[in-house]
């Protein structure tokens, strides 16, 4: 039976049926929960506001790729302007949140950089005196990390001395390419840490995933079906196990009874009609913006400040990883349109706290190809390297040809991800005037890059410039902080043991509503400085296993 047939069968919801679990969102965490719950014989319905991806829509292999992808596959929903997404009020934020609604979630547009958090990420308060420790440790999570890697089909090389010893990756690391080799050369000249990139892209055929062919268009959807997203890695298995998936289903409210227990959700279906899905347990996996938005929209008159919000922390402590990039051009050809795009090399040289630097916590760097001629021209598109005050003539005419000749095929980009510390003033609230295509209030982001992040980014940019120049760079361009960089949406329903200082417990259960769970990065007490998808999926698996094991003790309405 094909996935299409299974998906169609799964979409037929039964009126007034109460299921064991309803999950909001079919992205990385929701998909993990759905697969493992269904395999345990638990009835599951997943409601996803987007649709199944159509791989024919990914333009990476076609000449118009650079023209089309900057609209159709832009990671900012406000630019994409697709009715399946909700708009975001970004008038009060330094960084735009980036996301995508659909089966596979925002990973549809991720670079597939696959990184575990480090041990110190779970002990920030104990080691560095800031923020909070996590309720569990690196060692507690590692078995789930390794299990998820096998489900996802990760390529990489074990043995990195920046991590404790671990087992082998499921697949060999992807080829490094000239870009990665040049990036590594600079690090080697400086005597700094680097390691071949680990990516959620199998280097060999794996289930529904095809081997990577280095197309280099990971960030705009993989036309090869090689980048691991859960529409290919998890959903074919989840549907076979009996999970049901309803697309174009936008959840507008989590319903509760008089005892304060969740009874299900109300969603708007593809025809604009309100429908109710009753469930014994509700799991929200709608990302660090969508999850608090839904909780704030729920609760009614009994909890006017939003559901599960007695702590007042729903929506607060938003972390988005302030990001800088350094583009470096070299005389030698680097074939810098070739993938893998996500990371050919990464560095954790400056990951841990060194107080002499003037800031706490640290950064992760990833070395990427610079892409096609339009992108590297600096003349249009994202404009990340164009100063607001720049004269347009600086990027056109003879300058255009010279910029493209110098950069195209000859350049690499180091991305610098800085750990973002939680602050209650950085938050998601409901917009008073902006609404989505169903008339529901849009989220508004209130976010300022803090002084620690500014110092962290400046230090790392200076070091990065040293590295690329040591490898022979003839031109460098810096962008910081990159406004269109809020890929990682973290912290807005923080986990912890104290109901007064956290929204959920270590298993994702809301302190106020024990049969309502959050299983996305909203629950993370701190952000680390690595790409979070690996940790998101591992935490979701850990929570799901606990839920299955404790199913007979689960309090329900």
């Amino acid at each position, binding site marked *: 039976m094909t996935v299409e047939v299974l998906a169609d069968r799964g979409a037929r919801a039964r009126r007034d049926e109460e299921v064991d679990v309803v999950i909001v969102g079919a992205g990385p965490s929701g998909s993990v929960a759905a697969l493992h719950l269904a395999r345990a014989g638990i009835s599951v319905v997943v409601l996803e506001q987007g649709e199944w991806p159509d791989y024919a829509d990914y333009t990476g292999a076609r000449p118009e*790729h650079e023209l089309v992808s900057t609209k159709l596959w832009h990671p900012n929903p406000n630019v994409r302007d697709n009715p399946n997404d909700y708009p975001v009020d970004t008038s009060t934020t330094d960084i735009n949140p980036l996301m995508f609604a659909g089966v596979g979630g925002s990973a549809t547009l991720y670079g597939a950089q696959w990184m575990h958090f480090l041990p110190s990420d779970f002990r920030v308060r104990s080691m560095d005196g800031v923020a909070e420790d996590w309720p569990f440790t690196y060692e507690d999570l590692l078995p789930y990390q390794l299990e998820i890697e096998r489900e996802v089909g990760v390529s990489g090389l074990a043995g990195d001395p920046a991590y404790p010893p671990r087992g082998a990756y499921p697949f060999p690391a992807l080829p490094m390419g000239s870009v990665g080799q040049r990036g590594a050369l600079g690090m080697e000249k400086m005597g700094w840490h680097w390691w071949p990139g680990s990516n959620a892209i199998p280097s060999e055929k794996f289930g529904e995933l095809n081997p990577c*062919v280095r197309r280099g268009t990971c960030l705009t959807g993989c036309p090869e079906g090689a980048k691991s997203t859960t529409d290919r890695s998890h959903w074919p298995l989840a549907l076979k196990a009996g999970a049901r998936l309803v697309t174009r289903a936008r959840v507008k409210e989590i319903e509760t009874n008089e005892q304060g227990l969740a009874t299900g959700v109300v969603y708007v279906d593809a025809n604009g009609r309100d429908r109710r899905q009753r469930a014994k347990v509700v799991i929200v996996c709608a990302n660090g913006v969508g999850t608090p938005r839904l909780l704030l929209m729920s609760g009614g008159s009994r909890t006017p400040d939003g559901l599960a919000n007695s702590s007042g922390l729903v929506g607060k402590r938003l972390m988005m990883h302030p990001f800088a990039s350094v583009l470096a051009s070299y005389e030698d050809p680097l074939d810098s349109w070739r993938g893998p795009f996500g990371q050919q090399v990464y560095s954790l040289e400056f990951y*841990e706290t060194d107080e002499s630097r003037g800031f706490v916590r640290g950064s992760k760097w990833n070395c990427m190809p610079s892409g096609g001629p339009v992108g590297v021209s600096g003349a249009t598109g994202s404009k990340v390297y164009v100063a607001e005050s720049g004269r347009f003539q600086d990027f056109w005419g003879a300058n255009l040809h010279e910029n493209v000749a110098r950069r195209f095929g000859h350049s690499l980009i180091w991305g610098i991800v800085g750990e973002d510390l939680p602050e209650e003033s950085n938050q998601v609230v409901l917009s008073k005037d902006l609404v989505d295509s169903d008339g529901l209030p849009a989220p508004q982001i209130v976010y300022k890059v803090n002084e620690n992040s500014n110092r962290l980014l400046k230090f790392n940019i200076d070091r990065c410039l040293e590295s690329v120049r040591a490898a022979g760079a003839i031109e460098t361009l810096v962008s910081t902080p990159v406004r269109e960089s809020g890929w990682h949406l973290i912290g807005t329903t923080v986990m912890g043991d104290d109901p007064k200082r956290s929204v959920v417990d270590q298993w994702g259960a809301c302190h106020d509503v024990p049969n309502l769970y959050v299983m996305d990065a909203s629950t993370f007490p701190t952000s680390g400085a690595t790409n979070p998808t690996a940790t998101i999926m591992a935490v979701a698996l850990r929570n799901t296993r606990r839920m299955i094991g404790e199913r007979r003790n689960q309090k329900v309405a």
Partner: protein
Amino acid sequence: MSNENAFLALADFLIPAHGKMPKFSDVCGYADVEKSLDFRVDLKPGFARGIAVDPGTGAEARLESLNKEDGEAFSAITTIAIATYYMSPRVRELIGYPGQENVPYDSKATQIYLTNGSLGHVIARGRKYRPTPGL
């Protein structure tokens, strides 16, 4: 001035001949421009305003005016110009761009960093992480 001539004048100012590279209108016709606009219908309103600016002034002055007074139109004109130009097979040949190509490889091939000693240097520099047992 026709729409075609109005746009080509702007595009040739933005992308003139330089060294081995041809100017816009040497490699792209207006049919190519219309094809690009069909890929990006969202740009059509701004594009229409952009080519309607007073043709009595020179291309640079018109672009200067658009850049200051109608950023959406300026963005539409420049986006269509540069994307259409770099879609041209002749231009791609000149800059050595095959497009986002398929590059087969042997996943089991030994990578150079394993044989030239460079990764060995990283390992030799020792542990980077901070252990947390007991914390």
